[in-house]
């Protein structure tokens, strides 16, 4: 185990470090958006593992926390744009739950940038690719989160 770093970020990434990223995507917007990314052959980093849920409102704080505990370096939560939720207000619940989770990460000393909430519609294939690429880059620069690899 490397030395502790004061910021809670585990410090500079070792060369060749590839972050593990777990994404939760709602079925109707962001998962479909990711499909469109594929159909359009837009390329993005293969670090991401997408888990489909029906609505972003299904996502619990413990999904995020558990992912980090098990060694994820970043967690992406993606849902329909506010006002466009297939289930009326599920994404507002997601916004609330993720804000609460981010606060818990702050107290735990986990860099909040490791958790990202994005609204990506079914027609935003490019946004999906851009989001994944930017997030992967950011998390790669943050280095390993350092949980779960004992």
């Amino acid at each position, binding site marked *: 185990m490397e030395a502790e770093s004061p910021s809670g970020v585990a410090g500079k990434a070792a060369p060749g470090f590839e972050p593990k990223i*777990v994404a939760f995507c709602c079925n109707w917007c962001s998962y479909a958006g990711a499909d469109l990314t594929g159909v359009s052959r837009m390329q993005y980093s293969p670090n991401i593992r997408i888990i489909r849920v029906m609505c972003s*409102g299904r996502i619990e704080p413990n999904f995020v926390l558990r992912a980090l505990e*098990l060694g994820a370096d970043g967690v992406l939560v993606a849902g329909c744009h506010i006002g466009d939720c297939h*289930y009326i207000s599920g994404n507002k*619940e997601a916004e609330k739950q993720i804000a609460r989770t981010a606060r818990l990460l702050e107290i735990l000393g986990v860099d909040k940038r490791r958790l990202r909430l994005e609204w990506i*519609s*079914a027609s935003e294939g490019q946004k999906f690719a851009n989001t994944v690429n930017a997030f992967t880059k950011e998390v790669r620069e943050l280095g390993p989160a350092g949980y*779960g690899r004992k």
Partner: protein
Amino acid sequence: MPEEKAQGAGREAQGKEEGARDKGVGKDGGENPVPLSASPLEPSSLAPCALRPAPCRIGVFICHCGSNIGGIVDVPAVVEYASRLKDVVHAERNLYTCADDGLTAIKTAISKHGLNRVLVASCTPRTHAPLFRRTCEAAGLNQYLFEFVNLREHCSWVHMREPARATEKAKALVKMGVARARLLERQEEPVLDIEPAAMVLGGGVAGLSAALSIANQGFPVHLVEREPELGGMAARLHRISPTYRNAREVVGPVAEAVSAHPDIRLHMPATMTDLSGYIGNFEVTLSTGEKFRVGSIVVATGADELRPDGLYGWGQLKNVVTQMELERLMAAGPFTRPKSVVMIQCAGSRGQKVSYCSKRCCFTAIKNAILLKEESPDTEVHILHNEIHVYGVAFEKEYRRAQELGVRFSRYSPEKPSVSEQNGRLNVNFYDEGLRRERDLPADLVVLSTPLVARPEAEELSKMLKVPLGQDRFFFEAHVKLRPVDFATDGIFICGTAKGPTNIGECVEQALGAASRAAIPLAKGRVRVEAITSRVNTDTCRGCGRCESECDYHAISLVPVNDAFGNRLVARVNEGLCKGCGKCSSICCNRSISLRHFTTPQIMAMVEAALEEG
């Protein structure tokens, strides 16, 4: 340890199941009469006191999708990897799993290997899940014991330059799928009665065609049109390309047939103000206050022509008009034939006000140019374009005919032309790509070929219908190729220019397609709806009421019971109203309510598998 940990969530679910089975029938006698997770096996193999459920037997089918997946991902390596995963008893690869021999392979393997879970790793569940689920059902395996892994849209197509990492990711995705598959539970889908009537929104050529088709199939139709007359945009056109028939002659008879049809009820002028319910049972409220129930809905609300405010002097200079305005001038009868007409293509589209090609403007301009030329051969007609898009046999012919009649085509670029007034006459200045020089064309009439744009009301309508709009705010279909007139939401269909610019013939094609699709549930009379609804464990429910107050569909209510825990309240789910979002699952403080098919242990097992090494 990681493998053991990955199992933890599963065992937890099993633990709960055992608890429930110990008690047999739920305490209030209704809500949870079956064990929380029923075994996929035959009842005979289910010893009532068995603590361990029957072992999983998972079959994995990995699709090459021709070279779509197989050209990037090392499919044999993924198959080999999958075959070593716990509980996987069969793994194979198919050139196309969705083709007949692929589906046959699934059915054969289910019986040959006694599979009780099937995983297909191919394209997206959003298009192909129904096919594979039906295949499983046909082979006697409950469709909810099927798991889908997306190796094409989410892997091979997006990592085309990194085959090694794509293969590594494919393995991980399959592992995640297997982890979830282990915890899948058999579900029975509720069967709902269908209200045998449809609603068509929009009385343009698409809506009229759809309404007539549904009514002719024997189902009552409510046709809702916001204007006081039928016909929509088509009725305002002059002559229709490529037949040159008068628009009114084409649309008129359809509108009359609709008005006269005994099974079509017109609501006009009216708009929909509220919608609730689901396939088979939509409750509609109109601006007129009328309320009715329908089983399916066709959206044919059309599009608008872009108002080219601020473009090419429109609205400021006299004699600068749009193609629609020109049609109206021509339809009104003979008008003073101008000596020179300049048409400007892509006025406002392809990067100016909207990004897309409006598809119909090229043949519209050509048609109007031909009409002008035919009536007044001396009139000079110039069409300034970026490139001419006239697709298909008929329109290409018209392009040639226009050239024969002397219509001049000039390519402008890269800048769009500009229009000014000089000495009381219009002047169009542009850079002619063919001549590689700047030109000035004097004109008596400048016609702007403006695009169709989404109607502003589409925003509100999309929210009411719970269907998406695309980037350009047109309605967004379930799949551009495979489900062109469906929405992802069951029971709602789309046709015509509400979906994007198109010509009249195509509008009618789509309308007839949507009408046929919309009539399917009406003809069946009953429909099976997804079993992805929430379920309450009444033994643990504290009756706090959070799910009740947070449910947007009022699908949950607290009901009083008097049982071993005393006089108390417990949550109850109305399956007909539950839409399966799972919000209640994520806010329940002690997991007493759970969304079927997306349970916490199922999701957690995927998280664990995603992060497990190896």
